[in-house]
């Protein structure tokens, strides 16, 4: 997705960010589900740095989503999921996702204006 009316860099970047945020939400759900699993280590999803590099290179679809294990201290069962951190991360990812939806809608609005003219954009 590199060119064309619907495949410009901005649209592609928003799409990739939504993918990354979705993985983040999945990771939060998985960490919370394993809050009492012995020897489970919380996982973090990282995509922002890779997305920034991909946008800089001109092709956001080159973004790579990676995960890493949290090195927070573990409890006596060997589990290091922090419920507070997970809740904040889930809420943040949710709000960022909402922002991306708004940004995508703004892009659609621009296209709609271009197609229909300003009087019907509304």
């Amino acid at each position: 997705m590199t060119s064309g009316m619907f495949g410009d860099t901005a649209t592609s970047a928003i799409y990739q960010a939504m993918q990354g945020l979705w993985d983040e939400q999945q990771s939060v759900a998985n960490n919370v589900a394993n809050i009492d699993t012995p020897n489970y280590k919380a996982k973090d999803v990282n995509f922002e740095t890779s997305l920034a590099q991909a946008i800089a290179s001109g092709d956001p679809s080159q973004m790579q989503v990676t995960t890493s294990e949290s090195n927070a201290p573990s409890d006596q069962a060997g589990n290091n999921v922090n419920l507070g951190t997970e809740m904040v991360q889930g809420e943040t990812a949710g709000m960022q996702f909402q922002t991306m939806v708004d940004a995508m809608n703004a892009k659609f609005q621009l296209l709609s204006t271009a197609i229909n003219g300003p009087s019907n954009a509304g």
Partner: protein
Amino acid sequence: MGLFDPISTAVTGVNVSQTWLDTISDNIANMNDVTSPSQGAYQTRFVVAAAIPGQAEGTGPGAQTEASVGGGTEVAGIALGSPDGVLEYDPSNPLADKQGMVRSANVNLGDQMSNMMMAQNGYEANLATISQAEQAYQAALGLHV
């Protein structure tokens, strides 16, 4: 990536918490069980939880992430505590042996109560994740021209 993955992952957590609560109520219900000393006492039940590894679909970078994020949690089994119980002197009990001893269950109510709070908190935390994921779905449904 399945469409409702964060929600189904949270449901696996709800299910484990539910099984844990069931087990705790089983333990508490049986804490006054008495048998004759020649038989084993009620064995305290323990839930063994294990993480479900993610299922990678396809070969792209997204598939790798899904595999490493994981697919939630599951009950790997129920472990049983010691059948030794506690020998008590109760000669009026029809199950008592010649020495007047009976074997009663050795369920630690303090452990069960603190486990119940942890299971309840886990249950609620997973429900909170579901509503967070639901907000994101609602946002995505708002995509339109």
